């Protein structure tokens, strides 16, 4: 790793750890950070109720925020590579909407999707179907793919709204779900996200050079020894899988997958190895900050996290686009 990449990584990871501690300390019941740190080394500095809140609610939530952010960020990077477009993201491309669509349809049809496993399977089916639709359209003309994705996004969102309207109570929870929430975080979900994080990081790091080649002309990629179509499909399946699991458990959280790889690329360039390593902790950091804000902005209440990520993400994104000429990487 180059010095610059190492510095970026260290800043993101350390900020993420600080954000984790702040996230654990902040909420309706405020718990002193120093006490939390002391508690890590000595079990008796925090009282029992606080300890219960920390262990049962805040630690799993902070862990889920951290891991979800990282996964969404690297999945976004994957989409951007597959479609050779820095604006590609599961949210923009309608892949998240595909998951919402299938879940709301499932609910409307009376399927039982309350289990930890059936919800991601149904969400995955929807997002994968959307991904294939996009891929086979984008293969012919990759430039029209983004517009096609936006159209799919509108269509599926409209269908989801229709199902919510028709399904009334049994589909109502989809409304909250489409805005994203980490309130139902648990250790089980944190464990699932950990497995998913390890899987996607190892998977992407193994093929970081192939991902670099995918940014070149299609025929050049083939001549350099990769079957570009197969690689794209594989990356699309994996990123859809990881995105759909996140969408299934935490709802639709926009902008992380778009913003984090973009920021990382601005500082470190387009090579995938540092991008994968550094955009994960950046995503973790930004989603944790968003989660903290969502919990403190309205006293004794909580805003859906998707609203916060979009409110934070859009101005950062605009400012990056406006500064485009003054930065070294495009």
């Amino acid at each position, binding site marked *: 790793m180059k010095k610059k990449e190492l510095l970026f990584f260290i800043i993101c990871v350390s900020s993420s750890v600080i954000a984790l501690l702040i996230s654990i300390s902040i909420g309706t019941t405020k718990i002193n950070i120093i006490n939390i740190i002391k508690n890590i080394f000595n079990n008796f500095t925090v009282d029992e109720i606080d300890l219960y809140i920390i262990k049962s609610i805040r630690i799993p939530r902070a862990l889920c925020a951290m891991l979800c952010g990282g996964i969404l960020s690297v999945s976004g990077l994957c989409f951007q590579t597959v479609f*050779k477009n*820095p604006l590609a993201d599961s949210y923009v491309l309608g892949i998240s909407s595909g998951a919402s669509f299938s879940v709301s349809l499932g609910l409307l049809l009376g399927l039982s999707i309350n289990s930890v496993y059936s919800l991601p399977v149904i969400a995955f089916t929807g997002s994968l179907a959307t991904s294939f639709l996009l891929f086979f359209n984008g293969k012919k003309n990759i430039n029209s793919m983004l517009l096609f994705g936006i159209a799919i996004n509108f269509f599926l969102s409209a269908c989801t709204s229709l199902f919510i309207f028709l399904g009334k109570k049994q589909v109502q929870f989809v409304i909250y779900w489409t805005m994203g929430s980490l309130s139902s975080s648990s250790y089980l979900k944190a464990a699932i996200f950990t497995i998913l994080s390890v899987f996607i990081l190892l998977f992407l790091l193994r093929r970081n*050079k*192939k991902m*670099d*080649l995918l*940014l*070149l*002309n*299609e*025929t*050049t990629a*083939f*001549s*350099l*020894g*990769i*079957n*570009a179509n197969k690689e794209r499909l594989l990356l699309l399946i994996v990123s859809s899988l990881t995105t759909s699991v996140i969408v299934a458990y935490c709802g639709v959280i926009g902008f992380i997958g778009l913003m984090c790889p973009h920021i990382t*690329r601005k500082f470190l*360039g*387009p*090579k995938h190895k540092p991008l994968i390593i550094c955009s994960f902790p950046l995503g973790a950091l930004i989603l944790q900050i968003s989660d903290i804000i969502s919990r403190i902005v309205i006293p004794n209440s909580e805003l859906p996290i998707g609203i916060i990520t979009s409110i934070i993400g859009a101005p950062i994104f605009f400012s990056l686009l406006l500064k485009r000429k003054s930065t*070294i*990487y*495009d």
Partner: protein
Amino acid sequence: MISQAIKINNLTCSYSNKIILKNISFTVENGNFTAICGPNGVGKTTIIKYLVKELNTKSSSIFLFDKDINQIKQKDLPKYISYVGQNDFNKYSFTVKELIEMGKYGNNESKISTDEAIQIVDISHLKNKFINSISSGEIQLAQIARAVCQDAKIMILDEPISNLDPYHQIKIMEILRALNKNNKTIICVLHDLNIVLKYCPYCLLLKNGNIFKNGKTEDVLKPNNISNVYNINCEIFKTNHGQLQLAFYNNQC
């Protein structure tokens, strides 16, 4: 030593009921510098796509150094073929050096280092520049350096000098000539027939998905052949420097 670098036997290709290539057969000898010419849409790029396995044929109709291309794994292809396309760059800004290093990704048996490739193409001044900050001619030089670094037996170029100024056109063709002198087999899709006459000893002329003529360039690029393929009038003459030159006249397109 195997003399045939590429052998194509009865290759046919069609897209949505339109036949692009009709049973074409030709060979390219090892160490030759061959131009592929013909009107737009005649199937030149399609042949290249078959050679890099972007398109696949079920029959055994393509051989690289006597080996059926279907028997060559995609990951082993970079040892045989390197490729440079037209305006082959992307909106993501790699540095020139990073781009050239990518040649190594495909062929880890390459004996040419990144610095050597940079020297061969003479672009040390561009080494640390970003691809999106240099001119189209310089990008094309960087792409050729990447292909040099890949050190494949055959180098294929698809319209490498289109849209370039005369300086870069000549520079690129001189580099290709020098590489060919070092026994690299070069296949180059070109539209500028005068460039073909000057630099490419062999030429493959395509018409309507068929091979119209194949052989030594001065035999292939005769005015009647050009007139037949491109539907334009021209004459050929020798310049004061002894160079064959085509002049086009009275053409109402």
